[in-house]
C-alpha cells in the first residue's frame, strides 16, 4: 500500500516546487497526476514528472485522465470519440512517464441515454474493452472511478456490481473508490460492503479521500473530512487497496488527511 497525494495541489498558483516541498515534508512517495489541461497536460507532464522524480527518490505515479465533460456513454458520437482519444492518450502518457495506473471516469447517462439504454450500453461496453486492452498492452492498471451525480454510470453499490461484470476478466482493470463521491450519492461504505460481493470489493485498488461533495470541486466543507475518514476506516478493514490518495487543492487539508491516514495504516 502506498500513500499519495493528488496533483490538484498545483492549483491556486502553487508551483511544482511547492508540491515537491510538501511531498518531502510529509514523506510521500506517490503522486496521482490529474490531467487538467492546460495546467497539467500532454505538453508539460513529462517535465513535471521528471522534476518530481529528480527531487523525490522512488516516487510512484498514477495518472487521472481528464474527467469533467468526458463521457464514453454520450449519445453524441463526437463526445464519445473525443473522450476515447483523451483516455487512450492518457494511457500512452502513463507508459511514457512510467506511471503504474490510469484512472478514468466511466461515463454519464442523461435522459436520452437512459431512453436508449441498450444501444448506449453496447457502445459503452465496447469502449471500456478497447481502453482496457490498450492499458493491458502497456501493462498499466486501468481504474474506474465512481462519481456522485444521479446520471453517473459508476455511482453506488449496484453500479459497482454491474461494471464488475464488464471488467472481471481483465486482471489489469479495477475500481478507484472516491469516498466523498460515494457519500454524496447518498450511499456509504456499509452499504457498499453489504451489497457488493468480495470479488467486486477486491477490485478496489485505489481510494480517494477529500472533502465533500468532491475532491474535484473547490469545496470548503471542512467538517466532511471526519466523515470521509471514518468511511475509509471501515473499507480498509475489508479491502487493502494498492494506493490511497489524499486529494485536496489545499495543503493544510492534505496534511490533515495524511495525518489521519497514517493513524490507520
Amino acid at each position, binding site marked *: 500500500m502506498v500513500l499519495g497525494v493528488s496533483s*490538484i495541489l498545483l*492549483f*491556486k498558483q502553487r508551483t511544482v516546487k511547492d508540491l515537491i516541498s510538501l511531498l518531502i515534508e510529509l514523506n510521500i512517495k506517490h503522486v496521482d497526476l490529474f490531467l*487538467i*489541461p*492546460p*495546467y497539467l497536460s500532454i505538453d508539460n507532464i513529462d517535465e513535471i514528472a521528471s522534476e518530481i522524480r529528480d527531487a523525490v527518490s522512488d516516487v510512484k505515479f498514477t495518472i487521472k485522465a*481528464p474527467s*469533467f*465533460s*468526458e*463521457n464514453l456513454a*454520450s*449519445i*453524441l*458520437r*463526437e*463526445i464519445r470519440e*473525443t473522450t476515447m*482519444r*483523451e483516455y487512450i492518450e492518457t494511457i500512452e502518457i502513463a507508459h511514457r512517464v512510467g506511471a503504474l495506473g490510469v484512472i478514468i471516469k466511466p461515463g*454519464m447517462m*442523461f*435522459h*436520452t441515454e437512459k*431512453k*436508449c439504454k441498450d*444501444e448506449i450500453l453496447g457502445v459503452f461496453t465496447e469502449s471500456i474493452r478497447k481502453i482496457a486492452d490498450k492499458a493491458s498492452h502497456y501493462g498499466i492498471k486501468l481504474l474506474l472511478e465512481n462519481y456522485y451525480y444521479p446520471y453517473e454510470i459508476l455511482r453506488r453499490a449496484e453500479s459497482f456490481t454491474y461494471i464488475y461484470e464488464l471488467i472481471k476478466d481483465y486482471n489489469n482493470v479495477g475500481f478507484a473508490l472516491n469516498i466523498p463521491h460515494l457519500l454524496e450519492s447518498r450511499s456509504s461504505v456499509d452499504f457498499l460492503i453489504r451489497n457488493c460481493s468480495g470479488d467486486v470489493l477486491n477490485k478496489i485498488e485505489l481510494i480517494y479521500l477529500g472533502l465533500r461533495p468532491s475532491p*474535484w*470541486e*473547490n469545496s470548503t466543507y471542512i467538517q466532511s473530512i471526519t466523515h470521509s475518514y471514518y468511511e475509509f476506516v471501515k473499507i480498509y478493514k475489508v479491502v487493502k487497496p494498492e494506493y490511497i490518495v489524499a486529494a485536496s*487543492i489545499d495543503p493544510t487539508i492534505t496534511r490533515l488527511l495524511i495525518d489521519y491516514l497514517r493513524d490507520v495504516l
Partner: protein
Amino acid sequence: MRLLYGLSTSLAENYKNAAIETIKFAIENNFQVVEIFCETPDVLPDQPDYKKISEINSIARKHGIRIQIHAPFHSLNLASFNERIRQVSVKIIKDTIVLASELNSPIVTFHLGLCFLPCQIDRKKALKVLIRSLWDIIEFANDYNIMLAMENRGGKLDIGRLSDLLYVLDNISDNKLRVTFDVVQANVVDDPLKYYEALKKFIRNIHVSDSPRGKSLLLAVGEGEINYKELLARLIRDNISAPLIFEVANKEKALKSREELEKHKKALIRD
C-alpha cells in the same frame, strides 16, 4: 395579443422518433411551434439523417408548424479550459446551426457551459474562454442567418446565471445573440420575474414549466409556485411575442399548461 405555444421534443415517448411524434401531437392539438432537442437519436447534429430532415420539413411545412432547434448541451462546455473539449463543443454547436438551417429554424437555443474545478477557481478566465468560443459561433451563425439564443441555467455546475448572461451581453454586442428565458431554471436560483426584467430586451424564446422555488421538476403551469399570471401580464405589457415552449414532464402537462396560461390571459384581459 395571441400567444404562440410550442412543444419540446423532450416530451416524446419514443425518443427514436421524437421529432415526428411531437410534430404530430402539435398538429393534433393546435400548437404552433415545435422545438427539436438535438440530443435524441433521430436528430443528432453530428450524425444528420437527411431522410428524417426531409420528412420533418415536409410535415412541418404542410401543417404550418414552425420548427426551432435546441442544441445538445450534455457534455458540451464552451467555457472549458481543456482546448480539445472546447473545440468539440464549438463544432457540435456549429453542426447544430447547419442542421437548423436545413430544418428552416430561425433560432438555435444553446447552453453556455459548465463550471468545473478550474473555472471554480478562476471564473473570470472561464468567461473569457467562453467569449472566444461565442465569437467563433456567432460569425458562423451569421453566415447562415440564424439567431443564437443562450439559455439561463440554475444548476450547481452551470454557467448561465443572470450575471453570466449579462456579462456575455456586455461583451458581445451582436443582434444575432439573444436569450432563451427558461422560467423554471431562473426559479431554481432566484425570482423569475427578476430575471425577466433584467433580460426582457433580449428574450426571443421562452421555456415554460413550473416547480416549487429552488427546484426544477418539469411540472405543468399551476402545479408549482411560479407566478405565471404576473409573468404573462409583463409579457403582454412589454409586447414580447416570443414562443412559449412547454418543457414539461409529459404531453398532458403541456396541454394543462396551455389551458392554465389561457385562463390567466383571459383574466388579465378581463381585469
